[in-house]
């Protein structure tokens, strides 16, 4: 019975909330498209974390990863119960249609990945984020971006390279692992 909470007592929950609730709420809002429901999901996650605190083993993984694992289950349960599934992020008609053809669970997985990559893009430096936004999302020519930023075109390319490297690191920090997917 998950009653012992020697590892995650009330002060532990306060600390965990302070450190991770923001990110968790971001993911929940992204997944559920409903701020109120997302708040409920995060609250439920912390209550479950307190309840099963004795099951958290820091040697097996980070507290953050454990909280996100709980949150993922809570979000899935809530989304199933409410038949709420995230809308495709892409505004591309073909890509959007492909996402809509996925099962609800797979769409939630996609929402998790989408949130992770958006969070990753928030974490990398402004210079790096900017070149990815301009060249990839806005599809602007590298020369045009270089002229606007007042840097050589080669520097824009190398910033794109370092941006993707930094993004990969940020994703890995969030538990993403392409070898297991």
């Amino acid at each position, binding site marked *: 019975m998950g009653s012992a909470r020697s590892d995650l007592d009330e002060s532990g929950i*306060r600390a965990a909330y302070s450190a991770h609730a923001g990110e968790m709420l971001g993911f929940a809002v992204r997944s559920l498209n409903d701020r109120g*429901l997302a708040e409920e999901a*995060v609250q439920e996650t*912390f209550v479950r974390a307190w309840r099963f605190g004795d099951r958290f083993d820091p040697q097996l993984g980070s507290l953050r990863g454990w909280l996100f694992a709980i949150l993922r289950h809570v979000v899935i*349960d809530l989304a199933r119960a409410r038949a709420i599934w995230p809308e495709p*992020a892409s505004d591309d008609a073909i890509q959007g249609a492909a996402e809509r053809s996925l099962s609800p669970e797979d769409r939630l997985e996609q929402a998790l990945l*989408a949130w992770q990559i*958006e969070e990753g893009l928030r974490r990398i430096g402004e210079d790096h984020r900017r070149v990815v936004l301009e060249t*990839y999302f806005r599809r602007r020519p590298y020369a045009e971006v270089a002229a606007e930023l007042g840097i050589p075109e080669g520097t824009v390319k190398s910033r*794109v390279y370092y941006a993707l490297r930094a993004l990969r690191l940020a994703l890995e920090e969030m538990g993403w692992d392409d070898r297991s997917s």
Partner: protein
Amino acid sequence: MTARPDDHVRPLLGAFVLGHLDPDQEAAVRAHLDGCAVCREEARELAPVAALLPLADPERLGAPPEPSREMLDQVLSRIEWERGSRRRARRRSVIGRVGAAAAVLALIVVVGQMALEPSEPPQGEVVALTAARPGVLGEAVIHEDPRSTWVEITTSGLSTGETYAVWFEEAGTGERSPLGTFVGVEGDLYISLYSPLPRDMVASIGVSGRDGSTVMEGRVPLPVPS
């Protein structure tokens, strides 16, 4: 000191995996990758990151939502409530004693207010769960929240390591609305779940095994109008 080919090619690998290089540069990078394991590995690491980018919505890159202080307060008050609930549960030391032969599936529903301690939130409705096989005991307590229905289940005798699903049966439609899953453990198990299904739409609560067969169930009485 001359620059190594890697120094020229590596900074192009981001644009390369995004498909942004012109044909000449792309051909040059491909030719380099054929003979350079280090850069090949680098490109292999960047490619899945580039493949994820279409999932992101650039309009969502602003500041993430801020969790409120009230959210934390509600978490702490639920924890405090649950702590008190367990103390009471230990005192009662009662789990609906069911599990008789499946043929005697008399549904026992107990609706009541249990002894309340001062300043504690009101208790929910207690629903005894009727088990389909001997040795399985269960009781649910259903609470009505403004936005959801919250359920606490105390059970024992389920198979250790087995996954079970908890559901509500909706009044009227008879459809099952899932609340969540849990894994059986040795001894008593306490579970707390919630559903967005309004309390007055709940006809019964049940637990099913992996194969979908009902393990235990309890009928939830219609709420008494206040």
